[in-house]
């Protein structure tokens, strides 16, 4: 697939902080339009913080950040965001379809007047794109994690974005569903020419589909192809601690020696 030259994200000497607490700094990287980037790193290392910067919910502590040719700003209609999910209340009396509908006009004032038909058609299209027709009319709290994830993806797509930011969409899914959802995201990104940043814990379900990996750890950021970044040398340098990357016979990667580090960052 041909990719346009204009980058989707440009970060230069970027630093993120909450008040006085520095999360990471010195991040300089470029994400190309249409690229699929997995964001990895231990808990609390600042992966979600990166998404908050891109969404304009947090201002850079230092450095420069450009998203889709502009500075990040809240309410950018070109960026769709699927946050990390807490459990949706089982008794929430709202259909999945209504959630999807919010992606189109949820931020407009007032009640919906006119163009109901065309909006409903867009909702239907988004639901079909994620193959959720069978359960889109059921209360969303009663659906399985994978089904909810599909509908939240549909909500993101319904707004017709150019960039998709997903925070741990594979968490709390079993391995089979992780692969199915990851492939669905990749397919939708290809069909709609979306740039995707997807935060994940485990690179393995994503290995067949990611273009590059953005590793956030120990106050810094590294980007590259999975095979370049997820290596014993690179990660040991990034963490400033002995880290080992093991490979199994299927090409899966396992990072060993992170447990103490992630516990430290959680605090």
């Amino acid at each position, binding site marked *: 697939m041909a990719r346009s030259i204009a980058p989707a994200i440009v970060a230069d000497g970027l630093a993120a902080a909450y008040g006085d607490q520095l999360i990471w700094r010195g991040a300089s990287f470029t994400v190309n339009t249409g690229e699929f980037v997995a964001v990895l790193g231990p808990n609390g290392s600042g992966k979600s913080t990166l998404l908050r910067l891109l*969404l304009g*919910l947090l201002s850079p502590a230092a450095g420069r950040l450009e998203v889709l040719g502009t500075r990040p700003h*809240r*309410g*950018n*209609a070109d*960026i769709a*965001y*699927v*946050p990390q999910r807490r*459990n949706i209340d089982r008794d*929430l*009396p*709202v*259909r999945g379809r*209504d*959630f999807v509908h*919010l992606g189109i*006009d*949820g*931020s*407009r*004032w*007032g*009640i*919906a007047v006119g163009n109901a038909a065309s909006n409903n058609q867009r909702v239907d299209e988004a639901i079909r794109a994620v193959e959720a027709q069978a*359960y889109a*009319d*059921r*209360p969303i709290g*009663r*659906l*399985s*994690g*994978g*089904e909810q994830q599909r509908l939240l993806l549909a*909500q993101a797509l319904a*707004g017709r974005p150019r960039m998709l930011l997903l925070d741990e969409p594979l968490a*709390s*899914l*079993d391995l089979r569903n992780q692969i199915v959802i990851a492939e669905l995201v990749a397919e939708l990104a290809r069909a709609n020419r979306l740039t995707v940043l997807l935060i994940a814990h485990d690179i393995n379900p994503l290995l067949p589909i990611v273009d590059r990996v953005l590793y956030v750890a120990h106050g810094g950021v590294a980007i590259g192809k999975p095979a370049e970044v997820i290596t014993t040398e690179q990660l040991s340098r990034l963490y400033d601690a002995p880290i080992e990357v093991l490979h199994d016979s299927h090409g899966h990667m396992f990072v060993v020696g992170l447990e103490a580090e992630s516990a430290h960052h959680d605090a």
Partner: protein
Amino acid sequence: MPELYLAAAPYFGWDLVRVVQELFRYAFMQHAFEAGTMVAISAGVIGYFVVLRGLSFAAHALSHIGFAGATGAVLTGTAPIVGLLVFTMSAGAVMGALGQRLRGRDVTIGLVMAWSLGLGLLFTRLYKGSANLAIGILFGQIFGITSQDVALTFVAGAVTVLLVLAVYRPLLFATLDEEVAEAKGVPVRALSIAFMVVLAVAVSEAVQVVGVLLIFALIVAPAAIAERFTTRPSRGVLLAALLAVLFTWAGLTVAYYLPYPAGFFITTIAFWSYIVARLAAPTLTLPRRRGTEILARDEQARHSP
């Protein structure tokens, strides 16, 4: 002739036109129906979001804070409604600013509620007036509403309903999916404050009908029932308003014929409707695919750590 007319027992029977004529014979009944209807519409519409946002207890507490305001206003020679509005709106703004942090704070909310009732008790005692005033604020005095009150209720009710409609979509977005709504540029915090202030106005109005203690019946019960019968937000709002109006009309009607307070009948009807809805609703909203329902639940159980 007028003596004879008054002496006749109020008509009740199958002639519905005559029943309605009977109900509207006196000005106090007309006022009760007019104010009650407006209050019910506003309580139902706002109540839907109260239940959806998990603010039932906060709404209840607001009305108690209003009790301190109303009795305090009487003490200083002001109209009770002024004190009600000032106290509930200030408390509502604070609660709204707390936003999501308000959830699960039932100990704090409960303590503020109890202290407000205590303050109200002190103000009532200091006023040295009759206890009727306090009873009226606590349990409502729907049959004591003047035409001036009706006009005020109409303005307040219309304003609250219009305000909710004006922010309907972003409010729903912020209620269901706060993080995404915020990223999409919805002013989540401002909406939270605005909603609680509008709720404060609705609560202050509803105090006239059912009083401070019985407010759950008009704000929470209709919405809670509606949410068991429809999974579409727009229908939920309409159904909640409709139910609130029906409860009010039914309560007023029964109270006209029987020598017991309207507040008792309105809350009784609301309570038993909720019980019936709880018993009936599971089979109504989830008739399809019970098999997949169980599968989905099992799958979810497997996924949760």
